[in-house]
């Protein structure tokens, strides 16, 4: 066999191995969560808030954390979209290509992307102290929004960058302003990728424990106000795993299962909902 053919085969093998590795990891995680979580999953877990002694193995559920996580990640995602979209539109439509300022911003976002989430939590907490805020849903939303902002905006940036220049020109030559072009053409064209960016960010937001530990706090009650503390699933899982009682630890896996299912359902539903908007994308 020629060296080039060997090379080709070798790389094919490597690629297959990598694919298998990734898919198996996903399957193993899902199976572990299912096997360990399913037996402990009771309807009461998702319909009730913790009753007295829940963490000691008594009655109750994690509805507080389910709703708390949902509000928190949802709020943070919306907030991050509101900031990311203008950033990305500015980068790719308004700013001139090769602008030093834009490159500096991109670099900063990349660095922020790598900052550990506990740092965002601590940073958020410092800001909250400055404004005299206590641990609250609002504080958590802001901290998580900051955490997911770099992920979301850079992921969006990469897809909006791919929108052909001529498509923008087509809109401009009809007399459209840059804003009209951005909203009606660029966002529509990049919508599938923008959605992926939002989902990645949402997934990171809902699964993060460290950024909310100080900022959102924890409570057994369902959050009723932005100014009250809110429970989150990752923290609930953390507390449950931290107990010495096996039945509570099993509930941690059930909670993880709930979290996984939530992310899965939201991904699938939003894909279906946006399908009708993405059929117009120009290839």
């Amino acid at each position, binding site marked *: 066999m020629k060296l080039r053919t060997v090379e080709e085969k070798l790389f094919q093998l490597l690629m297959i191995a990598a694919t298998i590795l990734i898919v198996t990891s996903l399957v193993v995680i899902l199976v572990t969560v299912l096997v360990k979580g399913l037996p402990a999953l009771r309807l009461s877990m998702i319909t009730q808030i913790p009753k007295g002694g829940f963490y000691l193995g008594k009655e109750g559920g994690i509805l507080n954390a389910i709703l708390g996580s949902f509000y928190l990640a949802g709020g943070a995602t919306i907030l991050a979209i509101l900031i990311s979209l203008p950033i990305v539109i500015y980068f790719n439509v308004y700013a001139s290509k090769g602008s030093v300022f834009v490159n500096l911003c991109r670099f900063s976002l990349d660095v922020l992307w790598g900052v550990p989430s506990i740092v965002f939590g601590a940073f958020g907490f410092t800001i909250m102290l400055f404004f005299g805020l206590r641990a609250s849903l609002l504080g958590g939303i802001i901290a998580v929004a900051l955490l997911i902002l770099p992920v979301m905006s850079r992921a969006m940036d990469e897809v909006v960058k791919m929108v052909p220049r001529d498509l923008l*020109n087509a809109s401009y030559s*009809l007399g459209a302003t840059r804003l009209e072009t951005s909203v009606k053409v660029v966002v529509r*064209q990049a919508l599938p990728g923008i959605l992926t960016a939002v989902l990645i960010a949402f997934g990171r937001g809902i699964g993060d424990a460290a950024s909310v530990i100080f900022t959102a706090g924890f409570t057994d009650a369902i959050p009723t106000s932005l100014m009250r503390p809110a429970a989150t699933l990752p923290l609930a899982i953390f507390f449950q795993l931290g107990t010495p009682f096996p039945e509570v630890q099993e509930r941690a896996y059930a909670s993880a299962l709930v979290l996984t299912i939530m992310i899965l359902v939201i991904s699938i539903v939003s894909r279906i909902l946006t399908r009708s908007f993405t059929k*117009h994308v120009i290839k």
Partner: protein
Amino acid sequence: MEYKAHIRVRNLSVSYGTEQALKDVTVDLPEKKITAIIGPSGCGKTTLLKSFNRLIDAVDGIKVQGEVYLNGDNIYGPGIDVTHLRQKMGLLSQRPYPLPMSIYDNVAYGPRIHGIRKRRRLKEIVEHYLRESSLWDEVKDRLHTPASSLSVGQQQRLCLARGLAVEPEIILGDEPTSALDPTASQRIEEKFLQLKAKYTIVVVTHILRQAIRLADYVVFMYLGQLIEHGPARKVFENPQEELTRGYIKGVIV
């Protein structure tokens, strides 16, 4: 034959960074005629065309000197509303770029951004301009399907309808048939010959035969310079410049 000038270019020079794309171009383009801008690739044809609707503004490091007059107003002068200027010129690009929306919305896009909101009026406009670009019969039953589902030739006619729907005075074509098959190209050419009754048409083309078929007036460019311009007949049959003669004979490619 006397021509009434629609676009007057005066001493126009354009440079990208250190590269000079247009050197001191002065020419008048006649109203309600088809002007073909010809010349070898990289001669500044497209730059000249895109300077008319100021699409070159978006290019980085661009410098424009000189004037372009449209109806007597310098479009590079102060106080010119670029969106208003662009509305007066429909553009057909090399490859059709339908907007990421339905066929109907593609045509309605321009009228909508210029303030037409009534559904009935929009429907009339869409139908009228789709007929004008001879696309209506092919798409009337699927107006709300994605524009990307059309063939490339149909897409180019859709882009024509979309451009006409903002009621321009001028149609700019940047090698508008280069991505199309011969039949689709022919349809576009036929359209142009009909449309010149109402619009001033300026086409950049590297297909000499297309220029001969279409043009009333010819502008020959070479390396950013305007070499020769005049009525098509005169330029093709009796070119004054050595370079033009060479290009027409196929010596310079």
